[in-house]
Protein backbone atom coordinates (compact mmCIF):
# COMPACT_ATOMS: atom_id res chain seq x y z
CA UNK A 1 0.00 0.00 0.00
CA UNK A 2 1.51 3.29 -1.01
CA UNK A 3 1.18 6.58 0.78
CA UNK A 4 -1.36 7.80 -1.80
CA UNK A 5 -4.25 5.42 -1.31
CA UNK A 6 -3.63 4.95 2.42
CA UNK A 7 -6.32 5.73 4.95
CA UNK A 8 -4.94 9.04 6.22
CA UNK A 9 -8.00 9.62 8.39
CA UNK A 10 -6.31 7.34 10.94
CA UNK A 11 -3.97 10.23 11.63
CA UNK A 12 -6.78 12.72 12.39
CA UNK A 13 -5.94 13.25 16.09
CA UNK A 14 -2.28 13.96 15.32
CA UNK A 15 -3.15 16.37 12.50
CA UNK A 16 -5.70 18.18 14.67
CA UNK A 17 -3.25 18.49 17.57
CA UNK A 18 -0.54 19.72 15.17
CA UNK A 19 -2.83 22.41 13.73
CA UNK A 20 -4.04 23.48 17.18
CA UNK A 21 -0.45 23.66 18.44
CA UNK A 22 0.52 25.86 15.48
CA UNK A 23 -2.54 28.06 16.06
CA UNK A 24 -1.65 28.53 19.72
CA UNK A 25 1.96 29.23 18.72
CA UNK A 26 0.77 31.86 16.21
CA UNK A 27 -1.63 33.51 18.66
CA UNK A 28 1.23 33.71 21.14
CA UNK A 29 3.65 35.60 18.96
CA UNK A 30 0.97 37.79 17.40
CA UNK A 31 -0.17 39.01 20.83
CA UNK A 32 3.25 40.25 21.85
CA UNK A 33 6.16 38.34 23.29
CA UNK A 34 5.95 39.25 26.97
CA UNK A 35 3.13 39.27 29.48
CA UNK A 36 0.91 36.74 31.22
CA UNK A 37 -1.31 34.65 28.99
CA UNK A 38 -3.50 32.33 31.06
CA UNK A 39 -5.99 32.02 28.17
CA UNK A 40 -3.32 30.16 26.15
CA UNK A 41 -3.03 27.63 28.97
CA UNK A 42 -6.78 27.03 28.94
CA UNK A 43 -6.75 26.72 25.15
CA UNK A 44 -3.92 24.18 25.35
CA UNK A 45 -5.80 22.05 27.88
CA UNK A 46 -8.91 22.13 25.67
CA UNK A 47 -6.80 21.23 22.61
CA UNK A 48 -5.32 18.23 24.42
CA UNK A 49 -8.67 16.99 25.69
CA UNK A 50 -10.26 17.40 22.25
CA UNK A 51 -7.41 15.35 20.81
CA UNK A 52 -7.89 12.68 23.48
CA UNK A 53 -11.58 12.41 22.53
CA UNK A 54 -10.60 12.17 18.84
CA UNK A 55 -8.14 9.40 19.68
CA UNK A 56 -10.94 7.51 21.40
CA UNK A 57 -13.38 8.01 18.51
CA UNK A 58 -10.69 7.00 16.01
CA UNK A 59 -9.71 3.81 17.84
CA UNK A 60 -10.37 1.32 15.01
CA UNK A 61 -7.33 -0.71 14.06
CA UNK A 62 -5.38 0.05 10.92
CA UNK A 63 -2.08 1.17 9.43
CA UNK A 64 -0.98 3.89 7.04
CA UNK A 65 1.48 2.48 4.51
CA UNK A 66 3.41 0.56 7.19
CA UNK A 67 4.63 3.78 8.77
CA UNK A 68 1.88 4.53 11.23
CA UNK A 69 -0.17 2.09 13.24
CA UNK A 70 -3.34 2.54 15.24
CA UNK A 71 -4.41 -0.23 17.63
CA UNK A 72 -5.67 -0.64 21.19
CA UNK A 73 -2.13 -0.32 22.52
CA UNK A 74 -1.43 3.02 20.84
CA UNK A 75 -4.92 4.38 21.61
CA UNK A 76 -4.57 3.59 25.30
CA UNK A 77 -1.08 5.07 25.62
CA UNK A 78 -2.07 8.19 23.65
CA UNK A 79 -5.00 8.87 25.97
CA UNK A 80 -2.76 8.40 29.04
CA UNK A 81 -0.15 10.77 27.58
CA UNK A 82 -2.62 13.44 26.47
CA UNK A 83 -4.37 13.49 29.85
CA UNK A 84 -0.92 13.61 31.49
CA UNK A 85 0.16 16.62 29.42
CA UNK A 86 -3.16 18.37 30.12
CA UNK A 87 -2.58 17.94 33.87
CA UNK A 88 1.02 19.18 33.53
CA UNK A 89 -0.27 22.31 31.76
CA UNK A 90 -2.78 22.87 34.56
CA UNK A 91 0.13 22.71 37.02
CA UNK A 92 2.26 25.04 34.90
CA UNK A 93 -0.47 27.67 34.78
CA UNK A 94 0.15 28.27 38.48
CA UNK A 95 3.92 28.16 37.96
CA UNK A 96 3.85 30.67 35.09
CA UNK A 97 1.57 32.90 37.15
CA UNK A 98 4.32 33.09 39.78
CA UNK A 99 7.21 33.50 37.31
CA UNK A 100 6.44 36.23 34.81
CA UNK A 101 10.02 36.46 33.55
CA UNK A 102 9.61 33.37 31.34
CA UNK A 103 7.96 33.49 27.92
CA UNK A 104 4.51 32.14 28.65
CA UNK A 105 3.07 31.27 25.27
CA UNK A 106 6.15 29.41 24.11
CA UNK A 107 5.93 27.19 27.18
CA UNK A 108 2.47 25.98 26.20
CA UNK A 109 3.24 25.51 22.50
CA UNK A 110 6.40 23.55 23.33
CA UNK A 111 4.33 21.29 25.61
CA UNK A 112 1.85 20.70 22.78
CA UNK A 113 4.60 19.91 20.27
CA UNK A 114 6.11 17.50 22.77
CA UNK A 115 2.72 15.83 23.18
CA UNK A 116 2.49 15.52 19.39
CA UNK A 117 5.93 13.90 19.31
CA UNK A 118 4.91 11.44 22.02
CA UNK A 119 1.77 10.51 20.04
CA UNK A 120 3.80 9.94 16.87
CA UNK A 121 6.23 7.77 18.82
CA UNK A 122 3.53 5.59 20.31
CA UNK A 123 1.89 5.04 16.92
CA UNK A 124 5.02 4.55 14.85
CA UNK A 125 5.40 1.34 12.89
CA UNK A 126 8.56 2.50 11.15
CA UNK A 127 12.00 3.41 12.48
CA UNK A 128 11.95 6.81 10.70
CA UNK A 129 8.58 7.81 12.16
CA UNK A 130 9.79 6.61 15.53
CA UNK A 131 12.91 8.77 15.29
CA UNK A 132 10.97 11.87 14.22
CA UNK A 133 8.50 11.48 17.09
CA UNK A 134 11.29 10.82 19.58
CA UNK A 135 13.22 13.91 18.53
CA UNK A 136 10.13 16.13 18.47
CA UNK A 137 9.55 15.09 22.08
CA UNK A 138 13.23 15.36 23.04
CA UNK A 139 14.00 18.73 21.43
CA UNK A 140 10.89 20.27 22.98
CA UNK A 141 11.98 18.83 26.33
CA UNK A 142 15.47 20.34 25.97
CA UNK A 143 13.94 23.79 25.45
CA UNK A 144 11.55 23.30 28.36
CA UNK A 145 14.33 22.12 30.70
CA UNK A 146 16.28 25.32 30.04
CA UNK A 147 13.26 27.54 30.19
CA UNK A 148 14.47 29.73 33.06
CA UNK A 149 17.28 31.10 30.96
CA UNK A 150 18.57 33.48 33.63
CA UNK A 151 18.83 30.70 36.17
CA UNK A 152 22.17 28.93 36.36
CA UNK A 153 20.79 25.57 37.47
CA UNK A 154 18.18 25.50 34.72
CA UNK A 155 20.64 26.19 31.90
CA UNK A 156 23.20 23.80 33.35
CA UNK A 157 20.62 21.03 33.59
CA UNK A 158 19.45 21.77 30.05
CA UNK A 159 22.92 21.58 28.52
CA UNK A 160 23.55 18.26 30.25
CA UNK A 161 20.25 17.03 28.91
CA UNK A 162 21.04 18.13 25.34
CA UNK A 163 24.49 16.55 25.28
CA UNK A 164 23.44 13.26 26.85
CA UNK A 165 20.14 13.15 24.97
CA UNK A 166 21.94 13.66 21.68
CA UNK A 167 24.34 10.87 22.56
CA UNK A 168 21.41 8.58 23.40
CA UNK A 169 19.79 9.39 20.04
CA UNK A 170 23.04 8.53 18.31
CA UNK A 171 23.10 5.16 20.08
CA UNK A 172 19.51 4.39 19.05
CA UNK A 173 20.25 5.35 15.45
CA UNK A 174 23.43 3.32 15.33
CA UNK A 175 21.47 0.26 16.43
CA UNK A 176 18.74 1.04 13.89
CA UNK A 177 21.24 1.43 11.06
CA UNK A 178 22.35 -2.19 11.47
CA UNK A 179 18.77 -3.43 11.55
CA UNK A 180 18.12 -1.53 8.32
CA UNK A 181 21.31 -2.80 6.74
CA UNK A 182 20.51 -6.43 7.44
CA UNK A 183 16.88 -6.26 6.34
CA UNK A 184 16.71 -3.45 3.78
CA UNK A 185 13.59 -2.03 5.39
CA UNK A 186 12.80 0.35 8.23
CA UNK A 187 9.31 -0.99 8.87
CA UNK A 188 9.09 -2.60 12.29
CA UNK A 189 6.50 -5.08 11.02
CA UNK A 190 8.69 -6.20 8.10
CA UNK A 191 11.75 -6.45 10.33
CA UNK A 192 9.85 -8.64 12.79
CA UNK A 193 9.11 -11.16 10.02
CA UNK A 194 12.77 -11.75 9.15
CA UNK A 195 14.44 -11.20 12.51
CA UNK A 196 14.52 -14.87 13.51
CA UNK A 197 16.30 -16.05 10.35
CA UNK A 198 18.56 -13.04 10.67
CA UNK A 199 19.49 -14.03 14.19
CA UNK A 200 20.63 -17.42 12.97
CA UNK A 201 22.88 -15.86 10.32
CA UNK A 202 24.23 -12.83 12.15
CA UNK A 203 23.74 -13.38 15.90
CA UNK A 204 26.45 -10.91 16.88
CA UNK A 205 25.16 -7.97 14.86
CA UNK A 206 21.54 -8.51 15.88
CA UNK A 207 22.41 -8.64 19.59
CA UNK A 208 24.65 -5.60 19.19
CA UNK A 209 21.87 -3.58 17.57
CA UNK A 210 19.49 -4.60 20.35
CA UNK A 211 21.98 -3.47 22.97
CA UNK A 212 22.63 -0.13 21.25
CA UNK A 213 18.92 0.59 21.01
CA UNK A 214 18.36 -0.56 24.58
CA UNK A 215 21.07 1.83 25.80
CA UNK A 216 19.46 4.73 23.95
CA UNK A 217 15.90 3.97 25.04
CA UNK A 218 17.17 3.22 28.54
CA UNK A 219 18.42 6.79 28.68
CA UNK A 220 15.01 8.15 27.73
CA UNK A 221 13.23 6.12 30.42
CA UNK A 222 16.11 6.68 32.91
CA UNK A 223 17.02 3.15 33.94
CA UNK A 224 20.31 2.31 35.65
CA UNK A 225 23.09 2.62 34.36
CA UNK A 226 21.73 5.34 32.05
CA UNK A 227 19.98 7.36 34.76
CA UNK A 228 22.71 9.83 35.75
CA UNK A 229 21.17 12.75 33.85
CA UNK A 230 17.77 12.46 35.54
CA UNK A 231 18.43 13.98 38.98
CA UNK A 232 20.45 16.88 37.57
CA UNK A 233 17.93 17.76 34.89
CA UNK A 234 14.99 17.26 37.25
CA UNK A 235 16.53 19.58 39.84
CA UNK A 236 17.43 22.29 37.33
CA UNK A 237 14.19 22.32 35.35
CA UNK A 238 11.15 24.38 36.31
CA UNK A 239 8.97 22.13 38.51
CA UNK A 240 6.13 21.54 35.98
CA UNK A 241 8.76 20.53 33.42
CA UNK A 242 10.15 18.08 35.96
CA UNK A 243 6.66 16.63 36.22
CA UNK A 244 6.48 16.47 32.43
CA UNK A 245 9.82 14.67 32.14
CA UNK A 246 9.04 12.16 34.85
CA UNK A 247 5.64 11.29 33.41
CA UNK A 248 5.27 11.99 29.72
CA UNK A 249 8.82 11.28 28.53
CA UNK A 250 9.03 8.16 30.65
CA UNK A 251 5.67 6.65 29.67
CA UNK A 252 6.22 7.44 25.98
CA UNK A 253 9.64 5.79 26.25
CA UNK A 254 8.12 2.69 27.80
CA UNK A 255 5.46 2.53 25.10
CA UNK A 256 8.11 2.55 22.42
CA UNK A 257 10.29 -0.01 24.19
CA UNK A 258 7.26 -2.27 24.30
CA UNK A 259 6.38 -1.64 20.67
CA UNK A 260 9.87 -2.14 19.26
CA UNK A 261 10.93 -5.04 21.41
CA UNK A 262 7.67 -6.93 21.58
CA UNK A 263 7.04 -6.78 17.85
CA UNK A 264 10.59 -6.88 16.55
CA UNK A 265 12.44 -9.12 18.89
CA UNK A 266 9.75 -11.31 20.32
CA UNK A 267 7.13 -11.38 17.60
CA UNK A 268 8.81 -14.14 15.66
CA UNK A 269 8.96 -17.55 17.29
CA UNK A 270 10.74 -16.19 20.36
CA UNK A 271 14.26 -16.87 19.11
CA UNK A 272 15.64 -14.13 21.32
CA UNK A 273 13.34 -14.80 24.23
CA UNK A 274 15.94 -16.07 26.74
CA UNK A 275 18.65 -13.49 26.07
CA UNK A 276 16.12 -10.70 26.13
CA UNK A 277 14.46 -11.79 29.37
CA UNK A 278 17.73 -12.07 31.20
CA UNK A 279 19.13 -8.74 30.03
CA UNK A 280 15.95 -6.92 31.08
CA UNK A 281 15.68 -8.81 34.37
CA UNK A 282 19.21 -7.83 35.38
CA UNK A 283 18.68 -4.19 34.38
CA UNK A 284 15.39 -4.12 36.30
CA UNK A 285 17.06 -5.52 39.43
CA UNK A 286 19.91 -3.02 39.32
CA UNK A 287 17.51 -0.14 38.59
CA UNK A 288 15.25 -0.95 41.54
CA UNK A 289 18.15 -1.37 43.97
CA UNK A 290 20.20 1.66 42.91
CA UNK A 291 17.20 3.99 42.51
CA UNK A 292 15.81 3.21 45.95
CA UNK A 293 19.15 3.21 47.77
CA UNK A 294 20.36 6.55 46.40
CA UNK A 295 16.94 8.07 47.08
CA UNK A 296 17.58 7.41 50.79
CA UNK A 297 20.36 10.02 50.87
CA UNK A 298 18.48 12.85 49.13
CA UNK A 299 17.67 16.15 50.81
CA UNK A 300 16.07 17.88 47.83
CA UNK A 301 12.49 17.00 46.95
CA UNK A 302 13.01 17.16 43.17
CA UNK A 303 16.07 14.92 43.31
CA UNK A 304 14.13 12.56 45.56
CA UNK A 305 11.38 12.38 42.94
CA UNK A 306 14.03 11.78 40.27
CA UNK A 307 15.47 8.75 42.05
CA UNK A 308 11.99 7.58 42.97
CA UNK A 309 11.19 7.83 39.25
CA UNK A 310 14.25 5.70 38.46
CA UNK A 311 12.98 3.08 40.92
CA UNK A 312 9.48 3.23 39.37
CA UNK A 313 11.04 2.62 35.94
CA UNK A 314 12.60 -0.48 37.46
CA UNK A 315 9.20 -1.72 38.63
CA UNK A 316 7.78 -1.13 35.15
CA UNK A 317 10.61 -3.20 33.65
CA UNK A 318 9.65 -6.25 35.72
CA UNK A 319 6.61 -7.23 33.61
CA UNK A 320 8.67 -6.68 30.43
CA UNK A 321 11.28 -9.10 31.71
CA UNK A 322 8.78 -11.61 33.02
CA UNK A 323 6.73 -12.14 29.90
CA UNK A 324 4.17 -14.75 30.69
CA UNK A 325 1.87 -13.88 27.83
CA UNK A 326 2.78 -10.66 25.96
CA UNK A 327 -0.73 -9.21 25.96
CA UNK A 328 -1.03 -9.90 29.70
CA UNK A 329 2.24 -8.05 30.37
CA UNK A 330 1.02 -5.08 28.33
CA UNK A 331 -2.14 -4.94 30.43
CA UNK A 332 -0.07 -4.91 33.63
CA UNK A 333 2.15 -2.12 32.31
CA UNK A 334 -0.78 -0.01 31.13
CA UNK A 335 -2.48 -0.26 34.52
CA UNK A 336 0.69 0.72 36.37
CA UNK A 337 1.31 3.57 33.90
CA UNK A 338 -2.14 5.05 34.58
CA UNK A 339 -1.63 4.77 38.32
CA UNK A 340 1.90 6.20 38.09
CA UNK A 341 0.76 9.18 36.00
CA UNK A 342 -1.90 10.24 38.47
CA UNK A 343 0.13 9.68 41.65
CA UNK A 344 3.23 11.42 40.30
CA UNK A 345 1.37 14.37 38.81
CA UNK A 346 -0.63 14.82 42.02
CA UNK A 347 2.60 14.87 44.03
CA UNK A 348 4.21 17.31 41.60
CA UNK A 349 1.20 19.65 41.76
CA UNK A 350 1.75 19.96 45.51
CA UNK A 351 5.54 20.21 45.10
CA UNK A 352 5.04 23.10 42.64
CA UNK A 353 2.68 24.83 45.04
CA UNK A 354 5.00 24.47 48.05
CA UNK A 355 8.35 25.19 46.37
CA UNK A 356 7.01 28.21 44.49
CA UNK A 357 5.64 29.55 47.76
CA UNK A 358 8.87 29.17 49.71
CA UNK A 359 11.36 29.59 46.88
CA UNK A 360 13.39 26.58 48.06
CA UNK A 361 13.19 22.95 47.03
CA UNK A 362 14.72 21.08 49.97
CA UNK A 363 12.64 19.05 52.42
CA UNK A 364 12.44 21.85 54.97
CA UNK A 365 10.05 23.80 52.74
CA UNK A 366 7.52 21.05 53.51
CA UNK A 367 7.85 21.31 57.27
CA UNK A 368 4.56 21.87 59.02
CA UNK A 369 2.53 21.69 55.82
CA UNK A 370 -0.27 20.03 57.80
CA UNK A 371 -0.74 23.20 59.84
CA UNK A 372 -0.60 25.43 56.75
CA UNK A 373 -2.89 23.42 54.50
CA UNK A 374 -4.25 20.14 55.91
CA UNK A 375 -5.85 19.01 52.64
CA UNK A 376 -2.61 19.35 50.67
CA UNK A 377 -0.61 17.57 53.38
CA UNK A 378 -3.00 14.63 53.48
CA UNK A 379 -3.17 14.42 49.67
CA UNK A 380 0.64 14.52 49.42
CA UNK A 381 0.89 11.69 51.95
CA UNK A 382 -1.56 9.61 49.93
CA UNK A 383 0.43 10.15 46.72
CA UNK A 384 3.76 9.32 48.36
CA UNK A 385 2.38 6.23 50.10
CA UNK A 386 0.82 5.23 46.81
CA UNK A 387 4.19 5.51 45.07
CA UNK A 388 5.66 3.38 47.87
CA UNK A 389 2.83 0.86 47.50
CA UNK A 390 0.69 1.02 50.65
CA UNK A 391 -2.46 -1.13 50.47
CA UNK A 392 -5.73 0.67 49.71
CA UNK A 393 -3.96 2.99 47.28
CA UNK A 394 -3.79 2.39 43.53
CA UNK A 395 -0.02 2.02 43.77
CA UNK A 396 -0.43 -1.14 45.82
CA UNK A 397 -2.76 -2.72 43.27
CA UNK A 398 -0.36 -1.90 40.43
CA UNK A 399 2.61 -3.32 42.28
CA UNK A 400 0.70 -6.40 43.40
CA UNK A 401 -0.31 -7.11 39.81
CA UNK A 402 3.30 -6.73 38.65
CA UNK A 403 4.36 -9.04 41.51
CA UNK A 404 1.82 -11.68 40.50
CA UNK A 405 2.78 -11.50 36.83
CA UNK A 406 6.45 -12.00 37.72
CA UNK A 407 5.58 -14.95 39.96
CA UNK A 408 3.45 -16.51 37.22
CA UNK A 409 6.33 -16.26 34.77
CA UNK A 410 8.52 -18.16 37.23
CA UNK A 411 10.70 -15.20 38.16
CA UNK A 412 10.05 -15.26 41.87
CA UNK A 413 13.48 -13.80 42.67
CA UNK A 414 12.68 -10.71 40.61
CA UNK A 415 9.39 -10.31 42.45
CA UNK A 416 11.34 -10.70 45.71
CA UNK A 417 13.76 -7.90 44.77
CA UNK A 418 10.79 -5.72 43.96
CA UNK A 419 9.18 -6.42 47.32
CA UNK A 420 12.35 -5.69 49.33
CA UNK A 421 13.14 -2.45 47.47
CA UNK A 422 9.53 -1.28 47.87
CA UNK A 423 9.89 -1.72 51.62
CA UNK A 424 13.08 0.38 51.52
CA UNK A 425 11.22 3.08 49.60
CA UNK A 426 8.80 3.59 52.51
CA UNK A 427 11.68 5.03 54.50
CA UNK A 428 12.41 7.99 52.26
CA UNK A 429 8.77 8.75 51.50
CA UNK A 430 8.14 8.79 55.25
CA UNK A 431 10.92 11.39 55.61
CA UNK A 432 8.79 13.87 53.66
CA UNK A 433 5.60 12.86 55.47
CA UNK A 434 7.32 13.34 58.84
CA UNK A 435 8.33 16.87 57.83
CA UNK A 436 4.74 17.71 56.95
CA UNK A 437 3.08 16.36 60.09
CA UNK A 438 5.64 16.35 62.92
CA UNK A 439 7.58 19.58 62.36
CA UNK A 440 6.49 23.14 63.02
CA UNK A 441 6.10 25.49 60.03
CA UNK A 442 8.86 27.98 59.33
CA UNK A 443 8.12 31.25 61.15
CA UNK A 444 7.44 33.30 58.03
CA UNK A 445 5.28 30.67 56.30
CA UNK A 446 1.61 31.49 56.61
CA UNK A 447 -1.47 29.57 55.58
CA UNK A 448 -1.10 28.21 52.07
CA UNK A 449 -3.80 29.16 49.57
CA UNK A 450 -4.01 26.81 46.61
CA UNK A 451 -5.15 28.26 43.27
CA UNK A 452 -8.03 26.60 41.46
CA UNK A 453 -5.93 24.75 38.86
CA UNK A 454 -3.75 23.06 41.51
CA UNK A 455 -6.75 22.13 43.69
CA UNK A 456 -8.54 20.56 40.74
CA UNK A 457 -5.46 18.54 39.72
CA UNK A 458 -4.85 17.34 43.27
CA UNK A 459 -8.49 16.36 43.75
CA UNK A 460 -8.66 14.42 40.47
CA UNK A 461 -5.38 12.62 41.19
CA UNK A 462 -6.48 11.85 44.75
CA UNK A 463 -9.80 10.47 43.55
CA UNK A 464 -8.13 8.19 41.00
CA UNK A 465 -5.50 7.00 43.48
CA UNK A 466 -8.07 6.04 46.09
CA UNK A 467 -10.82 4.71 43.80
CA UNK A 468 -8.42 2.47 41.90
CA UNK A 469 -6.97 1.40 45.24
CA UNK A 470 -10.29 0.41 46.76
CA UNK A 471 -12.11 -0.82 43.66
CA UNK A 472 -9.38 -1.88 41.23
CA UNK A 473 -11.72 -4.35 39.56
CA UNK A 474 -13.34 -1.49 37.66
CA UNK A 475 -10.25 -1.05 35.53
CA UNK A 476 -8.46 -4.39 35.78
CA UNK A 477 -11.39 -6.35 34.38
CA UNK A 478 -11.58 -3.94 31.51
CA UNK A 479 -7.83 -3.91 30.74
CA UNK A 480 -7.22 -7.62 31.19
CA UNK A 481 -9.71 -8.62 28.50
CA UNK A 482 -8.50 -6.34 25.75
CA UNK A 483 -6.54 -8.21 23.08
CA UNK A 484 -3.52 -5.93 22.71
Amino acid at each position, binding site marked *: MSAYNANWSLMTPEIVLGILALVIFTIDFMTGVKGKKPFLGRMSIIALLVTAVLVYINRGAGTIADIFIVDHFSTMFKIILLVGVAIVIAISMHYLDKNDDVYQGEFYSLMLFAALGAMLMVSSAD*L*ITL*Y*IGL*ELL*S*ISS*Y*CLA*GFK*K*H*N*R*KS*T*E*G*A*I*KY*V*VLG*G*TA*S*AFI*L*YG*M*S*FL*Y*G*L*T*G*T*TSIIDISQVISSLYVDYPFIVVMSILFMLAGFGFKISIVPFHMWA*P*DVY*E*GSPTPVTAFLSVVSKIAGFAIVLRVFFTTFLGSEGVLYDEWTWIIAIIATVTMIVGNLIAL*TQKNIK*RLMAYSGVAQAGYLLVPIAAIFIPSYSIGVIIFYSIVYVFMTLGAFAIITLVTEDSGRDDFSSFSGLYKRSPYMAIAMSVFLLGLAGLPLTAGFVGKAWIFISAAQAGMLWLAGVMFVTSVISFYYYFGVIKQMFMNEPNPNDVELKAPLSISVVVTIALAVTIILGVLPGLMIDWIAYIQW
Partner: protein
Amino acid sequence: MVPITLYLSLAAILFCVGLYGVLTRRHLVIVLASVELMLNAVNINLVAFSSIGPYADITGQVFTLFIISVAAAEVAVGLAILIALYRNRESIDVIKHDLLRW
Protein backbone atom coordinates in the same frame (compact mmCIF):
# COMPACT_ATOMS: atom_id res chain seq x y z
CA MET B 1 34.50 -2.12 -5.75
CA VAL B 2 35.17 -1.06 -2.17
CA PRO B 3 33.65 -3.64 0.19
CA ILE B 4 30.99 -2.53 2.65
CA THR B 5 33.05 -3.56 5.67
CA LEU B 6 35.36 -0.62 4.97
CA TYR B 7 32.50 1.86 5.24
CA LEU B 8 31.24 0.13 8.35
CA SER B 9 34.65 0.25 10.02
CA LEU B 10 35.01 3.93 9.12
CA ALA B 11 31.59 4.55 10.71
CA ALA B 12 32.54 2.52 13.79
CA ILE B 13 35.77 4.50 14.18
CA LEU B 14 33.92 7.81 13.79
CA PHE B 15 31.30 6.71 16.33
CA CYS B 16 33.99 5.80 18.85
CA VAL B 17 35.89 9.07 18.25
CA GLY B 18 32.64 10.98 18.82
CA LEU B 19 31.84 9.05 22.00
CA TYR B 20 35.38 9.63 23.27
CA GLY B 21 34.99 13.33 22.58
CA VAL B 22 31.66 13.52 24.43
CA LEU B 23 33.11 11.76 27.45
CA THR B 24 36.47 13.53 27.73
CA ARG B 25 36.47 17.01 26.18
CA ARG B 26 35.99 20.00 28.47
CA HIS B 27 34.92 22.56 25.88
CA LEU B 28 31.15 22.35 25.42
CA VAL B 29 31.20 23.36 21.76
CA ILE B 30 33.54 20.47 21.04
CA VAL B 31 31.28 18.16 23.03
CA LEU B 32 28.36 19.18 20.80
CA ALA B 33 30.54 18.69 17.73
CA SER B 34 31.36 15.18 18.98
CA VAL B 35 27.66 14.37 19.22
CA GLU B 36 27.36 15.46 15.58
CA LEU B 37 30.25 13.16 14.75
CA MET B 38 28.37 10.20 16.23
CA LEU B 39 25.27 11.06 14.21
CA ASN B 40 27.35 11.34 11.05
CA ALA B 41 28.80 7.90 11.72
CA VAL B 42 25.22 6.64 11.59
CA ASN B 43 24.70 8.51 8.31
CA ILE B 44 27.72 6.81 6.77
CA ASN B 45 26.36 3.45 7.89
CA LEU B 46 22.96 4.09 6.39
CA VAL B 47 24.24 5.44 3.09
CA ALA B 48 26.67 2.54 2.75
CA PHE B 49 23.91 0.01 3.42
CA SER B 50 21.53 1.77 1.05
CA SER B 51 23.98 1.76 -1.87
CA ILE B 52 26.00 -1.47 -1.54
CA GLY B 53 24.34 -3.29 1.35
CA PRO B 54 22.87 -6.79 1.03
CA TYR B 55 19.38 -5.28 0.54
CA ALA B 56 20.22 -1.96 -1.07
CA ASP B 57 17.33 0.45 -1.53
CA ILE B 58 16.61 4.16 -1.22
CA THR B 59 15.12 4.06 2.30
CA GLY B 60 18.50 4.45 3.94
CA GLN B 61 19.20 7.68 2.11
CA VAL B 62 15.79 9.07 3.08
CA PHE B 63 16.54 8.18 6.69
CA THR B 64 19.85 10.03 6.36
CA LEU B 65 18.10 13.19 5.16
CA PHE B 66 15.84 13.07 8.20
CA ILE B 67 18.78 12.54 10.53
CA ILE B 68 20.69 15.47 9.02
CA SER B 69 17.81 17.90 9.42
CA VAL B 70 16.76 16.76 12.88
CA ALA B 71 20.39 16.83 14.04
CA ALA B 72 20.64 20.42 12.82
CA ALA B 73 17.59 21.36 14.89
CA GLU B 74 19.06 19.56 17.88
CA VAL B 75 22.41 21.28 17.63
CA ALA B 76 20.73 24.67 17.14
CA VAL B 77 18.85 24.17 20.40
CA GLY B 78 22.08 22.99 22.04
CA LEU B 79 23.96 26.10 20.92
CA ALA B 80 21.13 28.37 22.03
CA ILE B 81 21.24 26.82 25.51
CA LEU B 82 25.03 27.15 25.40
CA ILE B 83 24.73 30.91 24.80
CA ALA B 84 22.29 31.21 27.71
CA LEU B 85 24.71 29.22 29.88
CA TYR B 86 27.62 31.44 28.86
CA ARG B 87 25.67 34.58 29.70
CA ASN B 88 24.95 33.18 33.16
CA ARG B 89 28.37 31.80 33.99
CA GLU B 90 30.91 33.48 31.67
CA SER B 91 32.37 30.05 30.91
CA ILE B 92 31.60 27.04 28.77
CA ASP B 93 34.11 24.75 30.46
CA VAL B 94 32.44 21.50 31.49
CA ILE B 95 34.42 21.21 34.73
CA LYS B 96 33.20 24.56 36.03
CA HIS B 97 29.53 23.62 35.76
CA ASP B 98 29.06 21.71 38.97
CA LEU B 99 26.02 23.22 40.67
CA LEU B 100 24.06 20.01 40.22
CA ARG B 101 25.50 16.90 41.81
CA TRP B 102 24.13 13.90 43.68
